[in-house]
């Protein structure tokens, strides 16, 4: 680890705050991360100096804003190792990115007799779009179960693919509930072996902020990114795709900027990625994204990962050792990221969340948009503490104290 968390925290305004006289301990970065000052500055630069619409303006501030918007595309392509900037479509969040694939690929290409394979640990964003499409065009939905070790069951996966009918695989890179880092290389290779034409979509929402990611190396067809979880602003996401996939797909959202020509009789679509960016895009947000990528690269994603791996090890160990606490997720830190779900004996997650809030500790409670996984775990809700680069071991004590306090409070 080559950065100093205490110094780093100074860049995050929200973390400077106190709640009832206590330091705010933010353990909900899996829901949304904090945003460093320089990302806000980048957006201000747009609003204060280059506030104009992009694409096709002939005056300077519009030209400059356009150049910066496109530079953000290249920057993100570089940051995640996209095959090409032409394979980067900006969306409003990763949910829209998945819907783009559901409408422009899945609904067009799959039908009765085909199967789409997903997993039991998906966020709704990487499940409901396929479910909805399946309802409408009638393909089969299959789901890879998880093992007792909270990992994907690869043997079961192999069986689910055995008939060669799996034409589409949708899998998360990292689970937002369990923290599990999935063995994508193996899984994708397995799927391509069962069906060389399989199209693979990876939900990168919980990976890009936390791990060095190399999309081209994964050889997936689509990869989803959401910016508000990676030190960037709200309102922006991206679909990373193989450019040849995009170029072959019909548009999804239609309107301005995504056409070449329009008449009552005929519309000519623009090329990818513009074909998929209808209307005025999130411009200031793209400025913010560029600054966020710079920020993360300065720290070094390998360092971010090393820091989190060490930290999640400490947290998981301490939570597992704490009385009455059950952790849902891998124990080996090398196999997991910083989202730690757990239950506290005798304390409903909502009560736990409220108690912790009294200690200035922000955690998430509920189903985490992963209802199918909750069913598998046999719970209605879990508590989840999630870590990021600005967290440190001094965030552990407030969490443990709050849990202990809640236990004794409700057991009294």
């Amino acid at each position: 680890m080559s950065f100093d968390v205490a110094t780093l925290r100074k860049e995050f305004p929200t973390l400077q705050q106190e709640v009832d006289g206590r330091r705010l301990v933010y353990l909900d970065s899996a829901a949304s991360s904090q945003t460093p000052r320089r990302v806000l500055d980048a957006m201000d630069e747009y609003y204060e100096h280059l506030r104009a619409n992009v694409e096709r303006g002939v005056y300077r501030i519009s030209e400059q804003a356009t150049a910066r918007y496109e530079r953000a595309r290249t920057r993100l392509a570089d940051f995640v190792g996209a095959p090409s900037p032409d394979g980067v479509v900006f969306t409003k969040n990763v949910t829209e990115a998945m819907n783009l694939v559901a409408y422009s690929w899945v609904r067009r290409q799959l039908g009765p007799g085909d199967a789409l394979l997903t997993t039991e640990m998906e966020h709704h964003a990487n499940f409901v779009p396929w479910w909805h499409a399946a309802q409408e065009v009638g393909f089969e939905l299959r789901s890879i179960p998880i093992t007792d070790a909270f990992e994907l069951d690869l043997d079961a996966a192999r069986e689910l693919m055995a008939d060669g009918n799996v034409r589409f695989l949708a899998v998360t890179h990292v689970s937002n509930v369990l923290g599990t880092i999935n063995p994508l290389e193996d899984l994708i290779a397995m799927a391509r072996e069962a069906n060389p034409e399989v199209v693979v979509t990876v939900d990168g929402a919980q990976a890009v902020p936390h791990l060095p990611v190399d999309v081209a190396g994964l050889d997936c067809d689509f990869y989803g990114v959401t910016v508000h979880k990676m030190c960037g602003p709200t309102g922006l996401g991206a679909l990373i795709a193989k450019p040849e996939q995009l170029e072959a797909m019909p548009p999804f959202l239609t309107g301005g900027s995504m056409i070449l020509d329009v008449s009552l009789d005929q519309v000519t679509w623009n090329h990818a990625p513009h074909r998929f960016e209808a209307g005025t895009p999130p411009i200031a947000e793209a400025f913010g994204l560029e600054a966020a990528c710079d920020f993360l690269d300065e720290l070094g994603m390998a360092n971010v990962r090393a820091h989190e791996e060490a930290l999640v090890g400490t947290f998981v160990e301490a939570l597992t050792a704490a009385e009455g606490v059950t952790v849902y997720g891998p124990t080996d830190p090398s196999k997991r990221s910083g989202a730690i779900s757990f239950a506290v004996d005798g304390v409903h997650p909502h009560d736990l969340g409220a108690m912790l809030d009294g200690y200035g500790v922000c955690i998430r409670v509920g189903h985490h948009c992963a209802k199918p996984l909750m069913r598998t775990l046999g719970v209605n809700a879990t508590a989840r503490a999630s870590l990021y680069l600005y967290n440190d071991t001094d965030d552990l004590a407030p969490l443990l104290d709050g849990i202990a306090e809640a236990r004794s409070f409700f057991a009294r």
Partner: protein
Amino acid sequence: MSMEDLYQEIILDHYRKPHNRAPTLDDEDVHVHHSNPLCGDEMDLRIRVDDDGTLDQVVFDGEGCSISQASASAMTIAVAGRELKDALELAEDFRLMMHGEEPTRLDDLQDGIAFQGVARFPVRVKCALLGWMALRDAIETYERGASAHSVTYDD
């Protein structure tokens, strides 16, 4: 806003030793199921109505946080023996209290008063309301002549 405002001793007592918590009710007239999938809360509420149109008994069962369980428990006591219309009015008084208004029927609400502080915790308001809204639904279901109803909340 401190935790003590939310978790009053009366509330904790109801949570630890709920009243009228039962999975069945003999000769039940109406059974409603209310759930808030977003919280994972589930509540089964059963009522039995007397020949004179008063609530003979109300029992609940289910899963949820301390506030939802305790509030349902306190509710079953406050409404037992009331005329249906009166129980509906009391439920409305509680609902308004949860939205920050002064309750007009302090005595009738009985332990329900302890939940006044919950109004300052917006996300918990729906927890405190769960039992009361299930009651209202049960009475309305009864008045429609039906015997069962199921409601899913969106938050």
